[in-house]
């Protein structure tokens, strides 16, 4: 149940978010801290999934939030109720620009996160017992072998922590199509893991 609290803390309702955004537009410091707390690490994780280094992901995240502040401060944000999809659209564009610029291939796993650490640095409030770090590393490497369309769904859903509804708005696709894509991507990922000989989970059998 602590995970539920974590997600609810990360993703408060749109009414609450509207108030935070209104205060941020007025330049309230606490509001910006709240926006950063909710979305900063999620944008970072998405950027990190496409870039090799922490530094690049850090720079992309900073760039995204600088754009966010400029647009909100100037009244450029008008998509009321779609803030999250708007934010991640900015993030995706920045990430694509960076990948295109540096010709980096999408490599998600930074070994220092998963290997040689017994605790994979869980987020605030996360107390669930995670799988072995080596397993998470294998999972990250398997994601890299997915096709771009499948990987996009996996990254947005699990790394950026987006809801399917927000993903639907971001990618401009019907919800049903997204659910089908997610299901298909999971099956492909499981097939990759099985072909590599790593078990995707104790219950995963096909």
């Amino acid at each position, binding site marked *: *149940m602590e*995970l*539920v609290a974590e*997600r*609810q803390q*990360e*993703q408060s309702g749109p009414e609450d978010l509207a108030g935070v955004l209104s205060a941020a537009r007025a*330049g309230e*410091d606490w509001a*910006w*801290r709240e926006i*950063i707390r909710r979305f*900063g*690490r*999620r944008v*970072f*994780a998405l950027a*990190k*999934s496409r870039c090799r280094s*922490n530094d690049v992901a*850090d720079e992309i*995240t*900073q760039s995204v*939030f*600088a*754009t*966010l*502040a*400029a647009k909100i*401060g*100037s009244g450029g944000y008008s998509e009321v109720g779609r803030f999250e999809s708007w934010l991640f659209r900015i993030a995706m564009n920045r990430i694509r620009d960076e990948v295109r610029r540096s010709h980096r291939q999408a490599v*998600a796993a930074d070994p220092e*996160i*998963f290997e040689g650490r017994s605790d*994979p*640095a*869980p*987020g*605030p409030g*996360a107390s*669930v017992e*995670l799988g072995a770090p080596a*397993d*998470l590393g294998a*999972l*990250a490497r398997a994601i890299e072998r997915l096709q771009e369309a499948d990987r996009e769904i996996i990254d947005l859903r*699990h*790394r950026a922590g987006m*809801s399917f509804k927000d993903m639907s708005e971001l990618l401009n696709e019907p919800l049903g199509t997204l659910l089908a894509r*997610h*299901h298909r991507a*999971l099956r492909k*990922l*499981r097939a990759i*893991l099985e072909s590599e000989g790593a078990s*995707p*989970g*104790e*219950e*995963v059998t096909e």
Partner: protein
Amino acid sequence: MTMHEARSGGHEMNSHIEDAGLIELSGRLDDLGRAERGGAPAGLEDRLLSCVRGAEAPQLRYIDAPAPPLVRAGPALRRWMPLPMAAALAVAATIGAVWLNNRNSQPATSRMELAALTLEQDVNQWLSLPDVIGQELDAELAALDAEASRLSAKSDESANGLESLIEEGAL
């Protein structure tokens, strides 16, 4: 609430997945994402806040600054608009005339030279005309003068004859 529902945060179920293995895999992907979010470098939030403040600052300064005066094309400006337009038209017409002149420069020069030559000949003819007229006039005047002398002499003879007749008649 199942384990998967707890992993997905409860706000949105993975109801589209029925395969237990895929549900477990989805949960492990959530764990991976959580680990990556937690693996963000220290001080990320502080750096983001600095970025936000830096991006906001120009906006706030702009709001505080007095509004710049607006420059609009008012009646005074519109009144002077025809003048530049007329000047532009004149310049364009001049450029066009020069261009047309240059375009046919060789034939025009030939025609102009021919015309000038013809005009010169005409002028020379006109200038030489008084001499011709003067010579003819002198000849005519000399002839008239001779005729006048002849008539005068004849008149004298006639008068003398008439006087003689009158005198003879009176006698």
